[in-house]
């Protein structure tokens, strides 16, 4: 039985798979069709990557009609991340948005 960390590292070591996961983190829920259009690889390849991500607990799927929607489960990364780096990254990103907002605000 591999450690959860081993599975996560192995799962995300593949650049294409990691890119799919990143996109789901950034954009929210996406269909296989949309993910395929953006990934530069075939739909069966994307589906295979999504299967690996799902087994690692990094994504979840939802069926609606003939479409399957995938979304990220960033919480699955927990075994690898301590809260300091997590919260630090969170606030850095919020500050980016704050900077952006200040540019748009009136004096």
């Amino acid at each position, binding site marked *: 039985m591999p450690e959860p960390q081993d599975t996560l590292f192995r799962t995300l070591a593949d650049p294409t798979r990691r890119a799919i996961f990143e996109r789901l*983190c950034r954009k929210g829920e996406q269909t296989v069709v949309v993910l395929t259009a953006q990934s530069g690889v075939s739909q069966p390849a994307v589906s295979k990557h999504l299967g690996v991500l799902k087994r690692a607990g990094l994504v979840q799927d939802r069926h609606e009609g003939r479409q399957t929607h995938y979304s990220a489960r960033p919480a699955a990364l927990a075994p690898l991340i301590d809260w300091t780096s997590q919260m630090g990254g969170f606030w850095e990103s919020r500050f980016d948005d704050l900077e952006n907002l200040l540019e748009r605000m009136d004096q």
Partner: protein
Amino acid sequence: MNGTSSETRTVTVEREFPHPPEKLWRALTQPHLIEEWLMKNDFKPVVGHSFNLRGEWGGVLDCEVLTVEPNRTLSYTWNFAHDDPAFDLKSIVTFTLTQTSGGTHLRMEQSGFRPNQKQAYGGAKVGWQKFLADLEQVLAREE
């Protein structure tokens, strides 16, 4: 932003903005502006006011205003209640504004976590960027 092994841990993020403190203060204390850079909220700049921050990931943070010194200091609790102690989060966020020649220096300090706090839901959605950068470094070392 490194933690220590003592009772509490602290995350600090600092940045200088080319805008006056008064403008930053508005972004930090007006609900419709807070929503634009942080989360949906029912914040009021009144000590003792209880409010929620609602994240895109569906989580709700329980907060209470602790300090309001206009254009200088703002602090509130940042708690995420969870039955599992590993997910339960109790912390305090403090914003300190300092006027500089070019604008305002903003310091955010979040502290008060228990030492066994493994994760913080507030960061789960966006913490992955740093994680991926770290992961690449780890993988590079492995080769």
